[in-house]
């Protein structure tokens, strides 16, 4: 098993930095780290979209990303360079958020284990109500009133200290 750079406890910090960098560079959005979702799950009161990507290779695991619907539209518009939010359909918004999930996961893995090889499954929009007991390391980024929640889970028993 390959070593995680900075140790498995470094996962949260690397995940946060990767997400902030992606949001800033490709979505033109500055987000500050905030206290994690107190529920520690993925079910929220406001309408949200939850995406998940699984990865396999030197280590296995999953990343979930939870975004309020309103914020998802704004992110998609920024990414695609569309000024009028009304021009965006749900599938376009979902495509952009799938890409955000994919980039966040891939960037995090590359920085945690640069000597390893990983393969990512296509990200999916979770349509069923996600389980609230998903064991995960939780991080929250805040932009104005909107919060983007990230949940990282290592499947490998040896890495469970990060969750």
């Amino acid at each position, binding site marked *: 098993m390959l070593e995680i750079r900075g140790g498995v406890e470094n996962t949260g910090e690397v995940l946060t930095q990767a997400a902030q960098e992606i949001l800033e560079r490709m979505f033109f959005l500055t987000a500050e780290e905030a206290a994690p979702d107190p529920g520690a799950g993925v079910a929220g009161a406001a309408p949200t979209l939850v995406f998940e990507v699984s990865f396999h290779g030197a280590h296995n695991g999953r990343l979930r990303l939870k975004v309020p619907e309103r914020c998802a539209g704004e992110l998609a518009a920024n990414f695609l360079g569309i000024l009028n939010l009304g021009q965006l359909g749900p599938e376009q918004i979902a495509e952009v958020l799938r890409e955000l999930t994919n980039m966040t996961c891939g960037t995090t893995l*590359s920085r945690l284990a*640069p000597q390893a090889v990983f393969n990512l499954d296509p990200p999916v929009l979770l349509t069923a109500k996600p389980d609230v007991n998903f064991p995960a390391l939780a991080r929250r980024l805040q932009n104005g009133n909107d919060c983007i929640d990230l949940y990282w889970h290592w499947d490998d028993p040896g890495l469970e200290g990060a969750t």
Partner: protein
Amino acid sequence: MAFRVLVIDDSPAMRTLIRRVIDVSGLEADEVFEASDGQEALELLEREWVDVILTDINMPRMNGEEFVRRVAEAGLTRSIPIIVISTDGTVVRREHLKELGIRGYLVKPFQPEELKEQIEKVLGVPDA
């Protein structure tokens, strides 16, 4: 300098973004072709000539690494430069793809200027 480019990515959103970056960067692309995986790209290359290929790695059906291998086996990597655009910045993947003959590697997230510079470099634009 006008050129024809093939963008390979399973994400329609990322293909749209790359097309937009090319449009606004001042690069004079005559034509921007799109493919959603390596297999579709190989089929397109049987009927269209392109000057540069931009490809993702993680894709269903045929991933970017297999696509680069097939292009290399066909002896095309010398005449058609390939730039990989991926979130995968791992050393092993980069080195392996360089051995297969790719000319550039751009890690997401990237700035639009970085993509422009990579394209100009492989196309041999002066002062790039």
